[in-house]
């Protein structure tokens, strides 16, 4: 059971953005998608999210061709947090988060309420529950949106053995360092604890190394490397992907961790 | 109010005296249509009116009555609020649904002919007189209108070309065939330069120049809206017409020119007796012999 791309080729206009890309998001793991700007990360995420149809290749959702799965069923399997979620209308925080339950109209109102509470808790913003969304800061809004997609992932059906997938496109861009750590920690914990398959796009290589189980490095529309951080983060690969000179050191205080230092 | 009460008393007496049984019962009348109202007054029955419509502008007394709105958008409840026993409606009054509903609610509704022709005027007078139980007065009115028309027709006709325009919004509208204005022009022995057009249409300055009317008839309101007759005469298009050259602009009262009512002979007479119209005849007759 995976959410995987098989031999995906995708062009935007004349430019080929993805070139025979194959990778998989597995339940219970957190996968980090790294690459320079324009390498194709958001395009790959969009393809996995069902937004873009590939020129060739297939996206498989738990063994089914994504193209043939209707939108409402996709939504029950996979939640997507886009890069700059926007909302210009006057909704309350609870109302925004409870939208995560929309793919499950069969849930009772009480269940939805407790789902919302749980999601707010996980996202670290239970204190914002009674506020209006438009009054919040950019960082707070981003975390409320995170709570929304969490709600979408955590709605459990009895006897439902099917895994859920969570795609996060640069979810920490507006957050301060503490909240960046918290969000990624939560995502990783949910991956390991609830069996979610998480894909996250981040620019900070060290954060990716800290929290992700596996990393995929994209360069020029192709996969440059895939594997656990200690295998994938080498100066050579970093030069290929980011075009920077970097030193990769063992973390001074935390064992089994790496520290990437651009020169 | 006082006038109405005295009028009512007089009517009741007259009704008893005349012996036409229906007259006394029809006390309250509402009219829908300018010439319908005018005819009611001309028959001497104006005291019975309790309401009319926005287009009822003659005589002056008609404008003092409660107005139910425009006669093609009559509100049923508004008419009923006046507690009419009889509604005299022009055949153009509407919406048809409202007129029908008035009848369904139990009000006596009489629809009368209202086309811009002399025959229609006749029928209208007769129908209204009958509905009001004043058939004799109706006959007298019809006869007098006929007589006046004949007298006016006997006056020499010039055959000059004429144009009637309205100029309230800056763009002049010209009267084509099928309008009351065309009827007046025709009866006055004038040739309507817009005879091939139906109804009122906007005219460009060039078109007016091309039509070259010898006589231009304008309504009082249009003159006022244009800022005076001199300004109107100086408008492009009009300035170059034979009418402007011979100073042959005839100003007529709006209702006189635009409605087919009992004062139709007066309108025709006014036109025929205007010096420049008669003069235009002479010019065209002279042109014919040269």
């Amino acid at each position, binding site marked *: 059971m995976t959410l995987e791309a098989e031999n995906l080729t995708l062009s935007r206009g004349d430019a080929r953005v993805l070139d025979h890309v194959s990778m998989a998001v597995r339940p219970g793991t957190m996968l980090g998608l790294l690459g320079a700007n324009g390498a194709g990360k958001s395009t790959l995420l969009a393809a996995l999210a*069902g*937004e873009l149809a590939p020129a060739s290749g297939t996206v498989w959702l738990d063994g089914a061709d994504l193209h043939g799965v*209707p*939108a*409402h069923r*996709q*939504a029950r399997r996979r*939640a997507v947090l*886009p890069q700059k*979620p*926007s*909302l210009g*209308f*006057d*909704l309350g925080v*609870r*109302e925004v988060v409870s*939208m*995560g339950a*929309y*793919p499950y*109209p069969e849930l009772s*109102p*009480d269940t939805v*309420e*407790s*789902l919302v509470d*749980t999601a707010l*808790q*996980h996202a670290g913003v239970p204190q914002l529950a009674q506020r*209006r969304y*438009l009054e919040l800061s950019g960082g707070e809004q981003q975390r409320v949106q995170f709570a929304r997609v969490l709600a*979408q992932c*955590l709605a459990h059906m009895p006897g439902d053995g099917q895994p859920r997938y969570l795609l996060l496109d640069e979810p920490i861009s507006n957050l301060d360092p503490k909240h960046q750590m918290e969000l990624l920690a939560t995502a990783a*914990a*949910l991956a390991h*604890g609830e069996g979610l398959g998480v894909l996250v796009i981040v620019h900070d290589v060290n954060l990716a190394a800290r929290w992700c189980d596996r990393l995929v490095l994209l360069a020029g529309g192709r996969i440059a490397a895939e594997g656990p951080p200690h295998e994938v983060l080498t100066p050579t690969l970093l030069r290929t992907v980011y075009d920077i000179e970097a030193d990769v050191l063992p973390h001074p205080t935390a064992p089994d961790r790496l520290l990437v230092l651009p020169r | 109010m006082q006038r109405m009460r005295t009028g009512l008393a007089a009517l009741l007496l007259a009704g008893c005296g005349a012996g036409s049984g229906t007259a006394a019962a029809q006390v309250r009348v509402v009219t829908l249509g300018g010439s319908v109202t005018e005819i009611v007054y001309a028959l001497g029955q104006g005291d019975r009116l309790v309401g009319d419509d*926005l287009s009822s502008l003659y005589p002056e007394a008609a404008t003092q009555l409660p*107005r*139910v*709105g*425009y006669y*093609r*958008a009559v*509100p*049923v*409840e*508004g008419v*009923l*609020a006046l507690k009419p026993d009889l509604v005299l409606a022009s055949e153009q009054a*509407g*919406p*048809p*649904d409202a007129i029908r*509903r008035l009848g*369904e*609610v*139990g009000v006596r509704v009489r629809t009368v002919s209202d086309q811009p022709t002399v025959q229609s005027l006749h029928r209208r007078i007769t129908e209204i007189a009958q509905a009001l139980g004043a058939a004799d007065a109706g006959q007298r009115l019809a006869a007098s209108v006929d007589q006046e028309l004949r007298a006016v027709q006997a006056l020499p006709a010039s055959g000059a070309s004429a144009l009637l325009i309205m100029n309230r919004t800056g763009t002049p509208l010209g009267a084509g065939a099928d309008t009351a204005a065309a009827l007046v022009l025709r009866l006055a022995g004038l040739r309507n330069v817009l005879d091939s057009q139906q109804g009122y*249409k*906007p005219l460009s300055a060039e078109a007016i120049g091309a039509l070259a009317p010898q006589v231009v008839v304008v309504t009082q309101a249009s003159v006022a809206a244009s800022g005076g007759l001199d300004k109107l005469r100086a408008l492009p298009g009009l300035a170059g017409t034979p009418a402007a050259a011979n100073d042959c602009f005839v100003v007529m009262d709006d209702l006189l020119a635009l409605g087919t009512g009992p004062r139709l002979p007066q309108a025709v007479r006014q036109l025929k007796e205007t010096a420049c119209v008669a003069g235009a005849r002479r010019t065209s007759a002279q042109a014919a012999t040269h």
Partner: protein
Amino acid sequence: MSLARAGHRPRPPRIDAALAALALAVVAAALLAAASGAVRIPLGDVLRLLWPGAAQADDTLWRNVLVDIRLPRVLLALVAGAALAICGAALQALFRNPLAEPGLVGITAGGSLGAVCAIVLTQGGFAMVAPAAFAGSLLATACAYLLGRRAPGMAGLLLAGIAINTVAGSLIGLLTYLASDTQLRDLTFWSMGSLAGANWRLLAFLGPWTLLWSLWLLRQWRLMNALLLGEREAQHLGFALASVRRRLVVATALIVGPLVAATGGIAFVGLVVPHLVRMTLGADHRRLLPASLLAGALALVLADWLARVAVVPAELPIGLVTSLVGGPFFLWLLARGRRF
């Protein structure tokens, strides 16, 4: 980590109170509107006349006025106001724009074109004008929808709607030029809107029809909330956009089309009422939709009442009242700077 029940909070009570207050206001306004008009009927007699079997012989006029003229009209105002408002709310959600209203997809312009054709090219009359207006509005909406599909997102639909409105407008202009004076007057009055054509036969169709589709719209609140997040996000929450757009446009056309045919163009209700409700109660469609329904009914019943009693024995066209009252009120609200 497991799903811990954090304890549920009850739904904030103030919203239900608002809906209840609106419902009461609607009932009160309907009673007021039924009890007053050009013909003076004392309130006590109103209730007596509505009671079946209690009529006396000389009540006929009052009874006719009340039952045949006023009641259908008040009911039509309720139905039309509710329908216009909820369709306005739906389209504002679809276009993510608080300035949207049913006319944007061509419904009103198409209806006007149909009516104008009937008035100018035939002898007019309700029997011709109404079906022509209905056909016109459906045709215009279908054109806007089909053309709009070629562009991604709602922008296509919006642009196509604008194009259709422009084309309809020029055709209307052409026909206006060809019209005779009496036809012109009829056109003007049709475009200003009127509830005077209300009768029980019309309501017997329009009432249930509008109710049916409005109830369907009420149930689409999740869809409309999701649209507020954006088209992509709505898709991620499980709503297939092509089908969403089709369903909402079709429902709106089916509701507003017959209305425009029966009442002419009534301005402002579809635009201002949902906007007002959003400004006071927030954008959550679970409350916005039923509140718009009630507020629209209230607004139009009051507007019609004003139209009927302001210049007795004449009547104001209802579109005039809604614009004259709605316009400045709307400006005042915007000036106060409330968010939407």
